[in-house]
């Protein structure tokens, strides 16, 4: 029972639910007077939802098949690979990264692009480098420099109105 098979079960289950929800939602679409020739505004979404249901069933069946083929050598190999994969992973780092990105995006309109970017860059560099404290001066310099340069170039040279936040 390899973890890839497990993932396929999750995928098919999740997409099956998505397909059903999408299909139900198509009944609430509004449409415009006089545009319904042959097929209406709900036709295509229904077709796609139905096809999503169908493919998720196929993926489920395939996963079942590969599970029953446990004796197969190739599968054993794959299992080993998957195990090795998880060993070299650090999900804590991933979750912290996603949280950092989210906080960055939420702070941008409040603090403005300049400050939020500088903070994010320092944080994310530390996270990915496994908190290499000896490099913190370098990170500080690069982060602040990049934030200032990007903010300046885009606002004042290209006139892309990046959020100013409290500096505005």
């Amino acid at each position: 029972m390899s973890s890839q098979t497990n993932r396929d079960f999750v995928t098919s289950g999740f997409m099956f639910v998505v397909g059903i929800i999408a299909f139900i939602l198509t009944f609430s679409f509004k449409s415009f007077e006089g545009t319904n020739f042959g097929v209406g505004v709900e036709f295509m979404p229904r077709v796609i939802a139905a096809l999503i249901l169908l493919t998720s069933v196929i993926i489920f069946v395939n996963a079942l098949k590969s599970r029953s083929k446990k004796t197969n050598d190739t599968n054993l190999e794959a299992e080993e690979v998957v195990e090795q994969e998880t060993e070299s992973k650090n999900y804590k780092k991933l979750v912290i990264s996603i949280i950092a990105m989210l906080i960055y995006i939420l702070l941008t309109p409040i603090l403005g692009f300049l400050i939020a970017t500088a903070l994010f860059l320092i944080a994310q560099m530390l996270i990915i480098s496994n908190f290499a404290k000896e490099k913190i001066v370098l990170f500080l310099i690069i982060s602040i420099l990049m934030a200032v340069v990007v903010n300046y170039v885009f606002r004042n040279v290209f006139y892309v109105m990046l959020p100013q936040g409290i500096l505005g």
Partner: protein
Amino acid sequence: MKKLLLTLLTIIGVFMLAACGSGTESGGGTGGSSANTGDTGSDYPKKPIEVVVPAGAGGDTDLNTRTLAKYIEKELGQPLVVSNVTGSGGTVGVDKVIDAQADGYTVLAFHNSMLLNNLYGLSDKSIEDFKFAGTGVLDQANTFIVSKDSKFKNLEELIAYAKEHPKEVTMATEVGSMTYIQVMEFQELTGVEFNVVDIGGASDKLTALLGGRVDIFPTSLGFVKSYIESGDFASLGVITEERLASAPDVPTFKEQGVDMEIDKVFYWAFPKETPDEVVQAFSDAMEKAVANEEFQKEIVQYWVEPVYLNGEETKQKLEDIMELYKGIKESTE
């Protein structure tokens, strides 16, 4: 490498600024940076103003706005930064302006479509959500275009044919847009029935008429100017009160017995909580810009009229148009 990139960016930045500086040969020496806002006693504007155009770059809304913005900039002494905010028939751009701070540094530049989006239930925003600075450009050259080998030379022939062959004449529109409601009104007034087809934006309709997939293409004369000059297309008439100075030999719909007229109003508006003196300052700058002969020379190239209406007049005009649209919508349902 980073050093290299930085140097490059700086070089390019300098280069661009230089290009800005050396490249502008127009302007005609109207005293570019002398901000003229002393009358109101306020120091508006202190920083660049963002102009939201709820339409794509390169379209008529975008071109008219950018052209006028160039001249308003000269009056206000601060840059006007045009951003195109597309999506959902313009409602995204309209919402963006309403959600912005009402401090006079975000302005909407749009046209009749806002009213239609409200009318057809796409958006709950409309005239009363805004304080109007005014109008700088009117497009009065709305017309029905046919290709040169069309069966119809004028409206009379079109109406006669369409009466005998209901649902056979194909009209290229975009559902819920200005052209759509014009076609609805035309059907209402003349009692004919077309095959009204959604083809997409102006370029898609142009392609469809060139490819012979549709019979009639409602649009603005300016958009198909070169095709009329080359003889590929012909106009069945303009939807205005009187013949246009720019196209004196094109009859109006009224002359041909169809009582229609519509202007596309390119107005500028602030969120309704914006201070009056700020809107007034902007409105005054608009008035001066529209009166500028350079601007008038430039804008008539696009076959639109440089017409200044102040905030009140603009609001009144839009309310009249909304009344008309409501009437058409009710009678076609």
